[in-house]
């Protein structure tokens, strides 16, 4: 293929950004709408690879990716690992219990040691908000934030929005309702940033004890009335009750929470007839969502899981392709 005709193909065919500006993905608020469009279009094309008999392309051959997880995670890590393997990268999993942190090493020392082994990309999860920014400052590798404390989880927000895009023609004016444990959720902030920047109308709903104070400042509607929140909603997203993060009594009982805030078929009738139900997983059936809703026709929960792999492939590929001046990658 001739250089110029390839370049002109791009200027003719796409209105989206041609590349990401940052070499890290730390926060969705760093992404412009056209960069989000680029990630989505790339993810769209990546999805086809998962349908092949040989589910692998050589794009990241010879690249080393470290999945550095200081907090337990099954699905996010699995999803990243599958994405990395489909792109032919060499992957290494380092998780909390195998880390020298338990032997007293600081995060900075762990990062410096890791850096000395020259990985190309680090996928990072940590309990402290902002930890991925610290890592990005120390390491030459690209850093993907796979969840830092209660702060952000950019790839989850991207896969949620990507899934919405498949079902709804536009984000503009879409009523997206997020219900549940707002206080302990890392999905919430990234989702609010991303959905707001795409033009959606975001509602959040929680019992007063789990409501995030000042959440309206993010430009969302906040309510403690589940009926008001679900009324005419296009998307309903219950959040997981983060039982392991709760120290103290936020709700009288899980059964009462389900009665008051659980997403049931009866409550869902208030929403638009083509409403979709999403869940970042893992679900507590009978707590934040009724089983018949989770398995029902409005549920796109398993699509989110497969889209997660495609979106992560897109992010890995796009970050790997960035070359900064004077840097060998």
């Amino acid at each position, binding site marked *: *293929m*001739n*250089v*110029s*005709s*390839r*370049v*002109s*193909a*791009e200027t*003719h*065919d*796409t209105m*989206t950004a*041609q*590349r990401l500006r940052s070499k890290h993905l730390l926060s969705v608020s760093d992404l412009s709408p056209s960069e989000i469009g*680029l990630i989505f*279009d*790339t993810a*769209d*094309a*990546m999805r*086809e*690879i998962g349908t*092949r*008999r*040989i589910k*692998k*392309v*050589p*794009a990241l051959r010879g690249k080393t990716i470290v999945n550095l997880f200081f907090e337990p995670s099954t699905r996010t890590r699995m999803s990243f690992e599958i994405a990395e393997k489909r*792109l032919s990268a060499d992957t290494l999993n380092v998780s909390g219990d195998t880390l020298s942190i338990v032997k007293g090493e600081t995060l900075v020392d762990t990062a410096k040691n890791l850096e000395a082994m020259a990985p190309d990309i680090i996928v990072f999860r940590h309990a402290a908000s902002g930890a991925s920014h610290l890592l990005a400052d120390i390491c030459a590798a690209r850093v993907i934030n796979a969840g830092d404390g209660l702060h952000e989880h950019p790839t989850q927000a991207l896969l949620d929005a990507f899934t919405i895009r498949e079902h709804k023609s536009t984000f503009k004016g879409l009523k997206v309702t997020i219900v549940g444990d707002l206080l302990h959720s890392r999905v919430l902030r990234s989702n609010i940033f991303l959905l707001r920047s795409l033009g959606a109308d975001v509602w959040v709903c929680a019992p007063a004890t789990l409501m995030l104070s000042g959440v309206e400042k993010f430009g969302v509607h906040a309510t403690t009335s589940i009926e008001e929140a679900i009324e005419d909603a296009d998307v309903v997203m219950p959040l997981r009750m983060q039982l392991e993060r709760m120290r103290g009594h936020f709700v009288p009982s899980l059964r009462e929470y389900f009665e008051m805030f659980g997403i049931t078929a009866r409550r869902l009738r208030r929403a638009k007839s083509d409403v979709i139900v999403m869940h970042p997983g893992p679900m507590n059936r009978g707590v934040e969502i009724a089983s018949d809703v989770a398995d029902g026709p409005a549920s796109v929960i398993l699509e989110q899981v497969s889209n997660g792999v495609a979106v992560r492939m*897109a992010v890995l*590929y*796009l970050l*790997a*392709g*960035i*070359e900064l*001046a004077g840097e060998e*990658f």
Partner: protein
Amino acid sequence: MPVVMSADRIERTLTRIAHEVMERNRRLDDIALVGIRTRGVTIAQRLSRTLAEISGTKIPTGSLDITLYRDDLMRHTVGPQPVLRQTEIPFSIDERRILLVDDVLYTGRTVRAALDALIDFGRPLSIQLIVLVDRGHRELPVKADYVGKNLPTALRQSVQVFLREVDDRDEVTIEEYADTDAPSDAQEGSV
């Protein structure tokens, strides 16, 4: 910039290639066309229509994006990162004779990438290569089976293919690069 193929010429050339395909392949029922994104796909679709008109056989047609198979993915120092597009091969390529289609044959690196990609989809009986323009300067041992036009070029020249479906006109032009240090072809999108 000098026009080396007009709309009329492109049309007649593709009709000629369609006849050559029929001449060399006595059976058309196990043939499929696969175009390389972006303009190879357009040419493959046109060939498919022409073949249907003159032979009455509908040839399955797919499109291939070779971005993830490029050998220069991490070598771009400047300029746009190649944008990934859909690969759609809605048929099994096993036991089929594949006609791979591209607009310009140059270094041969695109074709190398496309062969790798195709073979991940299965084991075709054979793969033949169709190009609208062969401009020379091969860097890999690749040869086209059907050539629309052999166009001797200098490295500092650039061949541009415009097709109605993507560019609003049918034309092949050749032009000089503005600056003398033309992109070294092994690195810059020459795949």
